[in-house]
C-alpha cells in the first residue's frame, strides 16, 4: 500500500492532477461558506469585468460568476461521482454475470452491451434526459446508462480470465455458492482495473453533464458550469469572462481526473509497474 503511494507520487503528472482535484474538492466544500447567497441571486450590475467588486465578474443578469463556478463544482462532482458509481454497479453486474456463467447468458448480455456501445453516448444521453425531463436524477441516469458498457466488458474479460484459475474451482470445491464466488473471490481480484477505468469515467461523466447543461438539458434550478457557459455564449465578444472561467474549470477538473486515473492505472496495473 505504502509502496503504491510512493509510486503514485513519483508520477509528477498524477500528482499535479491530484492537487487540482483537491482544489476542486475545497471549492465543493467551501462554496456555501464563501458565497452564502444563492448563486442565482442578482448581486450587482450586469457584465462587470473580472477584478472589480467581483473576482470573476458578473454575467448578463448581474450574477456573480465566481459564485456560479463554486456552486457548479458541487453539481459536476455530485453528478460525475454518482453517475460513475451507478455505471460501475451496472457494469459489474452485467459483466460479472456474463463472465461467470458464460454460454447463452453471456451471448445475450454482451450483445446488449455492444448495442449500447454503438449508439453515440452523447446523443443517447440527450434522448434519455429529454424523455425523463431535465433534473439532476435524470442526468445521473442518462450518464450512467451511456457509461456502463466499458466497465461491463472489462469485468467480463477479467472474470473469464480468472474463471480458469484453480482457486475458483477450489472455492467451489469447498462448498462456496456462485454469489459468494462472484462477490467475495472474483470481484476483489479484478478491483484494480475497475478502479483505474472507473476513475477515468468520472472525467467523461463531468464532460457529458456540462454538455447537457449547455444544451439546456440540465436541472434549471441547479447551478452548473455548462449552464453558465451557455448563458455567456451569446455575449462572448463583449464579456469573454462569463464563458471562459467555467470553461477553464471544466478543463482543469477533467484533466485532473484523467491524470489521477492514469496514475492509478499505472500503480494498479502490474504490467505497467516497472516502466
Amino acid at each position, binding site marked *: 500500500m505504502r509502496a503504491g503511494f510512493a509510486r503514485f507520487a513519483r508520477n509528477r503528472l498524477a500528482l499535479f492532477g491530484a492537487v487540482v482535484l483537491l482544489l476542486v474538492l475545497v471549492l465543493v466544500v467551501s462554496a456555501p461558506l464563501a458565497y452564502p447567497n444563492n448563486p442565482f441571486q442578482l448581486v450587482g450590475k450586469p457584465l462587470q469585468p473580472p477584478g472589480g467588486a467581483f473576482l470573476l465578474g458578473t454575467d448578463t443578469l448581474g450574477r456573480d460568476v465566481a459564485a456560479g463556478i463554486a456552486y457548479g463544482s458541487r453539481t459536476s462532482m455530485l453528478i460525475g461521482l454518482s453517475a460513475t458509481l451507478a455505471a460501475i454497479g451496472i457494469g459489474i453486474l452485467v459483466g460479472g454475470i456474463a463472465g461467470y456463467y458464460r454460454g447463452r447468458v453471456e451471448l445475450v448480455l454482451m450483445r446488449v452491451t455492444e448495442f449500447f456501445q454503438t449508439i453515440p453516448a452523447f446523443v443517447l444521453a440527450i434522448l434519455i434526459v429529454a424523455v425523463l425531463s431535465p433534473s439532476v436524477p435524470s442526468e445521473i441516469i442518462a450518464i450512467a446508462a451511456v457509461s456502463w458498457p466499458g466497465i461491463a466488458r472489462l469485468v467480463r474479460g477479467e472474470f473469464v480470465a480468472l474463471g480458469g484459475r484453480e482457486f475458483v474451482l477450489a472455492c467451489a470445491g*469447498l462448498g462456496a455458492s456462485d454469489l459468494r464466488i462472484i462477490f*467475495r473471490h472474483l470481484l*476483489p481480484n479484478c478491483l484494480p482495473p475497475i478502479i483505474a477505468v472507473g476513475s477515468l469515467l468520472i472525467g467523461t461523466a463531468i464532460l457529458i453533464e456540462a454538455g447537457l447543461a449547455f444544451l439546456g438539458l440540465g436541472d434549471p434550478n441547479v447551478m452548473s458550469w455548462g449552464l453558465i457557459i451557455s448563458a455567456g455564449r451569446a455575449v462572448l465578444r463583449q464579456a469573454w469572462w462569463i464563458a471562459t472561467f467555467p470553461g477553464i474549470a471544466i478543463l482543469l477538473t477533467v484533466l485532473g481526473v484523467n491524470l489521477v486515473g492514469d496514475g492509478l492505472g499505472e500503480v494498479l496495473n502490474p504490467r505497467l509497474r516497472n516502466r
Partner: protein
Amino acid sequence: MDGTLMPQADIAPLVEIEDLTVRFTSREATVSAVNGVSFSVKPGEVLCILGESGSGKSVTLRAMMRLLPEKRTTITGRITIAGQDVLGLNARDLRALRGGLVSMIFQEPMTALDPVYTVGEQIIETLRKHRNMSREGARARALDLFELVKIPSPERRLDSYPHELSGGLRQRAMIAMALSCGPRLLLADEPTTALDATVQIQVLILLRRLQRELGMGTIFVTHDLGVASEIADRIAVMYAGRIVEEGPVADILANPRHPYTQGLMASTVHGQHRDADIQAIPGSPPDLRRMPAGCSFGPRCPTSQPRCREAFPPISHPSADRMVRCFREGEEAKASF
C-alpha cells in the same frame, strides 16, 4: 488393508463408482475423457489412481464433486459417497457435500488459494460457512489446523497472504483448508507434483499421517509410481479413460499383469543396473475424440493380437482382490498353472 473388489466386503464402502463415463462436448468434437470406470474405496483406505496426462484421472476426481463445467459435460453412471447419490444432489446439498463430506487438494497451491485474502481468512470463511462457527472459534480452529499440518509459527502464518508463503507451506495451508470441516473423503489431485523433491516427501508423509489419524478415505491421483507406492493401499492404473488394472499396492508393484502397467514399471527408475537402458512405451495415448474400437492400449501393446482390435477386454480377476482388463490374462494364468 484387505482391499477387495468382491461385493461380500464386510465394511460398507465409503465411495462406490459404477460405470462412470464423462464426455465433454464442444462444437468441434466430443471428447470421451472417462469411459466406464468402476471402483470403490472403503473408509480409511487410500486408493491411488495412476496414469499419464490425459488418462482421465483428474476428470474422474472432479466428476466425483461435480466440479466440471455443467453445460459442456455429460456424466453418466453412478457415484455414491457415504450413501449419497452425488449425481442426483440438488445445488444446496451439493454445496454441503463439497468441503463438508468431501474435500479436494489441488496440484498447484499458488493458484488454488485466492491471492487477495490471507490463508487464515480463507479457512475461517469455510469454517463459518459449513460449521456456523463464530469468528473467534473459527480462528482458534484454523490455528489448530495449522499446528496439525505442522506449519511453523502458525499464529503469524494465518495472517500471511499466499504469495508470502513457500510452496511447501502453501500446500500445507491448502491441506489445512481441505481438512477444516473434517471430511470423510479426501480427493488429492497430484498434490505433490508442483513441489521440490524434498518438500514432496514431507508433504506425502504428512498426508499419510493425517489420513491415518483422521481415518479419512483418500483418493490420490498421480502419474508418479514412486509417490503411489509411498502412500497407497491400493492402486488403480488408468489408461485412456479406463481402469486397466487394480489391486493392492505391493501386489501390483511386485507382479504387474497388464502390459501397460508393466511398461510403466519398466520406464521408471527403480534400482535397475546403471547401464541398463530405460524402456519407454512406444507410441502415444489414443485420441480421445476418436477412440479405437478394441483395447485402447492395443496400438502400443507389445503383445497385441488381432482380437485386441475388436473389443475391449473383459474384466478378469487373477486373485480375489485384483482386477485386470487384458485378453491374455486368463490364458496366461491357465498356461502357468
